[in-house]
């Protein structure tokens, strides 16, 4: 997979924040998945936030890819939370029976950060925050 990355993946402390700004086609989604999973190792990230607030549609391949990313991230030692699913998107997803499975979801970026802080038991977004109660 070549070409410029279409999703910016930003490091924030021990978390990675990936904001999807535009609808991605299948090959772009695969590219995003590879980028993200490899960066988890590079940055030794412990949490991943995928922000889909800008998407007004999420198809079955998209939601399956998000589930896969979460599972891959877990295997590489990071927790994933999907944030910013729009009401219409949420309705369409459940109507078509394509949920996010066991992946955590939160309202927006702020909530996502709060969720990761809670499950990881520290303030990972702040530099130098030391882990407690790691699970």
């Amino acid at each position, binding site marked *: 997979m070549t070409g410029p990355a279409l999703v910016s993946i930003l490091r924030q402390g021990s978390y990675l924040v990936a904001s999807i700004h535009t609808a991605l086609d299948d090959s772009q989604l695969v590219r995003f998945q590879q980028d993200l999973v490899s960066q988890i190792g590079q940055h030794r990230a412990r949490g991943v936030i995928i922000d889909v607030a800008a998407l007004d549609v999420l198809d079955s391949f998209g939601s399956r890819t998000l589930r896969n990313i979460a599972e891959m991230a877990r295997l590489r030692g990071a927790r994933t939370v999907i*944030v910013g*699913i729009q*009401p219409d*998107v*949420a*309705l369409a*997803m*459940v*109507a078509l029976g394509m*949920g*996010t499975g066991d992946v955590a*979801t*939160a*309202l*927006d970026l702020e*909530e996502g950060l709060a*969720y990761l802080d809670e499950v990881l038991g520290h303030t990972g977004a702040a530099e130098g925050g030391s882990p407690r109660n790691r699970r």
Partner: protein
Amino acid sequence: MDDDPTTAQDVARDFPTLDRRDEDQLLPQLVAHLREHRTKLRQEWAGRIQDAHLLHAMTPQEMAAETTSVYDNYVEVLETGSVEALQHYARDLSERIIPRGVETHEVVGIVLLLRDVLARSLFEKYQQDFGLLNRVLDAYEPAANRIANTVAVSFVDERERVIRQQQDSIRELSTPVLPVRERLLILPIIGVLDGERARQLTEQLLAGIRTHRAKVVVIDITGAPDVDEVVANHLVQTVDASRLMGASVIITGLSPEIAQTLVTIGVDLSKMNTIGDLQGGLEEAERLLGFTVTRGDRPAGE
């Protein structure tokens, strides 16, 4: 059609005195006749409306005013052949009389009465010349039917619009999304839940979750008498969709009947967090959000 030329020939033979120009003159002639006898015909019409016991809701003065404008509109349509102005008037009239309980049969009835009154007067005027009468009626009837049609349709359209409007406002009123604490919403459901309402409810709830940044939602269905399979599945979807937006849902107030129905029809409720009553649901929601509620027994200042 094959027999069209024959008919035209027959007509020409039976009524040799009428040529094309006369035919073109028929409607204007008719309109002139109706204008000339306006007062008499209108009064006759009003009399027949009263005889038929239509339009109880209106006072005699109102009736006189409305019958005059309906009459004038009617004649105008006959003259111009365009129903647009009449449509506009009929809609406007409907808007005024619908709130006063005028029924569809009354409106259709009075327009048909006017049609009959005018037809009678045409009979009277042209009774000497049966051929001419036939031609006049040929010109009059389609126009008159079109008018009756237009008025009836406008009235029904207007009524449907009013009904739709009322349905919309009832629907909006019937599914309030209430913030009770920071990040806690309550959605009380009162009355029958159908598919349409369930859909609307989900939309409002999801919008509410975003606006109020809710983390917990309590859906109370104490006031819902019955739930069918469609609605039950919709509730499950609502719970899933809320979860996708980061809010957890607690369902309270499931009546024994609904509980039995849900289990009997086999809706998958394993993911649903249900609690007996609204009070319990609120307590659970507060626990999830980390609120502790204590009674302030001591008077202030101590």
